[in-house]
């Protein structure tokens, strides 16, 4: 195995050991980071690899949570083995439906319509009684993973939820790596760099982009399902644009167009949020209460100063000689389908 693969496995093992000696609050916090990392990776597929700036990505995350909530009978538990595929399928179908409309637009329109469709879904759940309206809906009994009497894990145990999330993180990483190295993945990269050329080469770019959109939505659905299991509650905010913007920020912060970047970005973002919320008082003002001010300033500064995110920063620090080569290549993950 290559050095980086060994390093990755070592990281996963280290993460797996966390529940053995950390307090419940922190295990659940780390699980939250892992779930956000999965969501961020799914968005990076669109943002960094396909060059599609989706501002409504949370819709697919929230939809999976709602699917689980609606599939769970009241005060009874659903089966893990049926509810997970159902939730992921719901997200994928939603991505197909929305993608059908939005993938035909470009540039700034694409950004705005993805936002607007996510908002439509938001209001569908917020204003109607389909699932508890703006108070949200509760999953009172977590799904059970029983197969013919044998229970491999219990989702009522917060450590099992953590390990499950970690397993999915690893699986999604492997899946995305495989997809991106396949001919499909290379076509997607080509579309990002120059869609016209791809069309002239005979590629049905609309279909490729739509497929990418659906895959990304399905993975977001995995994250949404895990989140619903962990928190036991789903509400319209899980579909909201604040979450969409936060995930975008995680991807940019970590480094677009890389697979590890979003993971690092998710961790950095959540840790930053936790840290800022705990700020003490200063000059008669509770700084922790106004943590979003610092978060906002951080976003502004980071956007201006770190165009390639943490991964880009690490790269430029580690290998200064190769920096000039990077500029020639197209490995910067930038570029949208702007006219």
């Amino acid at each position, binding site marked *: 195995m290559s050095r980086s693969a060994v390093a990755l496995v070592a990281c996963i093992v280290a993460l797996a050991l966390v529940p053995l000696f950390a307090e419940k609050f922190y295990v659940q916090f780390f699980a939250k980071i892992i779930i956000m990392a999965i969501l961020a990776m799914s968005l990076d597929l669109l943002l960094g690899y396909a060059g599609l700036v989706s501002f409504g990505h949370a819709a697919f995350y929230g939809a999976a949570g709602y699917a689980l909530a609606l599939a769970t009978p009241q005060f009874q538990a659903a089966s893990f083995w049926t509810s997970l595929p159902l939730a992921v399928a719901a997200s994928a179908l939603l991505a197909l439906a929305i993608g059908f409309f939005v993938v035909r637009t470009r540039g700034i329109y694409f950004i705005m319509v993805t936002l607007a469709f996510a908002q439509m879904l938001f209001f569908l759940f917020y204003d109607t009684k389909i699932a508890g309206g*703006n108070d*949200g809906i509760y999953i009172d009994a977590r799904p059970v993973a029983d197969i013919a009497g044998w229970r491999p894990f219990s989702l009522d145990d917060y450590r099992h939820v953590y390990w499950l999330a970690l397993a999915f993180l690893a699986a999604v990483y492997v899946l995305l790596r495989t997809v991106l190295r396949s001919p499909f993945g290379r076509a997607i990269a080509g579309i990002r760099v120059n869609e016209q050329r791809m069309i002239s080469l005979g590629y049905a770019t609309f279909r490729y982009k739509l497929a990418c959109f659906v895959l990304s939505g399905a993975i977001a659905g995995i994250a949404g399902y895990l989140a619903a299991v962990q928190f036991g509650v789903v509400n319209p905010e899980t579909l909201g644009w604040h979450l969409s913007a936060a995930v975008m920020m995680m991807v940019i912060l970590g480094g677009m167009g890389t697979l590890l970047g979003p993971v690092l970005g998710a961790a950095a973002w959540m840790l930053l949020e936790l840290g800022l919320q705990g700020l003490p008082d200063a000059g008669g003002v509770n700084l922790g209460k106004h943590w979003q001010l610092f978060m906002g300033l951080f976003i502004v500064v980071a956007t201006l100063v770190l165009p390639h995110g943490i991964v880009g920063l690490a790269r430029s620090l580690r290998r200064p000689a190769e920096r000039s080569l990077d500029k020639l290549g197209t490995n910067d993950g930038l570029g949208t389908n702007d006219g």
Partner: protein
Amino acid sequence: MKNKMFDRRGFLKGAGVLGAGLAFPGLALSQGAKIKVGLMLPYTGTYAALGVAIENGFRMALAESGGRLGGREVEFYKVDDESEPAKATDNVNRLVTRDKVDVVVGTVHSGVAAGMIRVTKESGTLHIIPNAGVGAATGPLCAPNIVRTSFSNWQSGYAMGAVLAQRKSIRNVVTLTWRYAAGEEFVKGFKDGYAKGGGAVAKELWLPFPNVEFQALLTEIASVRPDAVYSFFAGGGAAKFLRDYAQAGLKDKIPLVGPGFLTDGVLDAAGDAAQGIETCLHYADSLNTKRDNDFRAAYAKAYKMPPDVYAVQGYDSGLLLAAALKSAGGRIEDRKAVVAAMEKVTVDSPRGKWHLSKAHNPVQDIYLRRVSGKENKYVGVAVKGLDDDPASIAACKMS
């Protein structure tokens, strides 16, 4: 003064260690340790003033027993819930799992409270609800460790419905409120009460929460022309609604009624637009009982503003907790004993005497009030000793 406190603490510690150390080695350390109270209230947003009033009332009750509960000192942990149901579980988890408080006091917004009770029901943490009237808390989701010192949304709606049912001139009514759990429960209570007189609601109008664009719906009301409008809004939304209702010329033509929240705490902002509006609530200004007058004077002195129903609810939460802990000898860790003590207490509240129902909701008198000047003046008793929605009572199964 300082010496006395030192001695008392030392005495308690000594006695505690001696006595408890014999029977419960684990408790020896916690006896005399501070009681952790977690306050989860809205300190920002449209309900911010309510959160502050509740905390003020609670602290005042504590001050009356020397700043202690059951003889033990109190340590406060505060979380701003921003009236956001989406963050409810996260926020309450911080208090329950990370800060490990002994009792959670919260909150105002029914949707947020619904999230809180799911966590506290599971963790068994003592939970006092000082406002949120969500029916489920003392209905299908009731639990021995969850107690409410305020009201259920249904109670207040029922009372107003019962009042209108007795007026022969009111034959059709339109309801208008936000579409969320609290709004729906108020309307249901109103319909139940109004139905007793054989009346029915002509139309139900809803607005997404927390939308305050009333124009289209006011126009609709004018075209339906009911005999009365029952409406629930609170905080900033209520002030705007009252002003818009008056500006649309409806105020003097179609009587507006609602639960007390429509006019509590908004009279400054609403001014003339609120005059003469009748509401039902378990508290009123100018109740003119000695208990209430004393309370109001003390509160105004301490906080430089008159108290409102939220302050009373916060105060009663403190009273209830203090009385129960006194009975249980300060042992908040013994939840069963504390809850049993709470169930036996008759709270001598500024609103009047009340006690907890089997489902842990206050059984209390609901008053009819009318806005006069800057006060919600007491007019009479709408319903005496009202328990809760029969459907809620039936659904509550406390193990």
